[in-house]
């Protein structure tokens, strides 16, 4: 992907495919929640019945992943592609998708980690092909937002952010 590209546009059809994939992952593993994040920490979409602060969760999980990547570099490892965080009640399994997205599943002690690993691998493969389509179909901003979006946004920012 062009590193100078400043935005990633995820079309409706792809978002629906991601939601379906996350829903299957939650159902098949018996997990409580699955999230797909961009590596910058923004939540693309989530599925499940958790009542957590998803935005904060996304920022923290992406931070953990980015931090582990720096640890990997210090150990001359390319990446840690999977992370597992184990609590008394809740566990989190996190997997990287093509250096761009992060898949995260939250599950409790009733679910076996082996099952989560296998099904997450299947889901990451599916999501990697969705990401590939998103990258290749990259639409122009104006096509999605409309040509007057920027002016409207600037007016809104002027109105809101006054000292």
């Amino acid at each position, binding site marked *: 992907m062009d590193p100078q590209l400043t*935005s990633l546009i995820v079309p409706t059809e792809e978002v629906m495919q991601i939601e379906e994939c996350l829903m299957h992952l939650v159902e098949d593993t018996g997990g409580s929640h699955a999230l797909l994040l961009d590596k910058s920490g923004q939540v693309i979409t989530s599925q499940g019945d958790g009542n957590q602060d998803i935005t*904060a969760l996304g920022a923290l999980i992406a931070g953990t992943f980015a931090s582990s990547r720096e640890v990997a570099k210090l150990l001359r490892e390319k990446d840690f592609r999977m992370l597992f965080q184990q609590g008394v009640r809740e566990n989190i399994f996190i997997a990287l998708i093509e250096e761009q997205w992060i898949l995260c599943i939250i599950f409790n002690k009733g679910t076996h980690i082996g099952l989560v690993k296998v099904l997450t691998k299947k889901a990451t493969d599916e999501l990697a092909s969705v990401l590939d389509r998103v990258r290749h179909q990259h639409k122009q901003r104006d096509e999605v937002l409309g040509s007057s979006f920027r002016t409207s946004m600037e007016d809104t920012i002027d109105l*809101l952010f006054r000292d």
Partner: protein
Amino acid sequence: MALINVAAREIHCKVVYYGPGMGGKTSNLQHIHNRAPDGTKKGKLLSIETETERTLFFDFLPLDLGKVRGFDTHFHLYTVPGQGLYDRTRVAVLNGADGVVFVADSQVQKLQENLASLKELAMNITRQNKKFQDFPVVLQYNKRDIQPVYEEQVLPDGTRRRRQVAGALPVAVLDKYINPKMQWQRFEAVAMRGDGVFETLRAISKLVISKL
């Protein structure tokens, strides 16, 4: 990289406050959090800090600007830990940023730290395979309220010279060293009391939106 979710009609942008330690990055976010304007929806200010309240990993503040042309626009504001020790953590937080506010400490004794931090920022952006000269950056000269202190020196030839030993450097001097080509918009601020905080946020928000 900003994220545009067409199905949910959402836009997400990431702005990182970068700069030397104790420069006022967290104070910027605290003021934005305390005085979030009507019409915006703020989330919880999340801080991961040391026992002495220095930033350990990052501060995070989600700010929802409401609907614009049918799209909900969310700005995610982060700070990096400024202390030298945490250089790798700064790389991690900077990952995927759409714009940076560089918070410079105006004090004379902090000039070298400002320059070192700016150099490090340029290196970290370049490592993300982005061109630093094209990357959205806004400068904030913070702590403008600290009065300058001068000392008179007698040079070997007997002439007397006044030298600034403490307090905020004049803006022209900061420009000369930090922004010599005047390529970045810069704002004077006293973040602790909120002066210049929203002005800076307004500039970086517009810059990021212009690059979408």
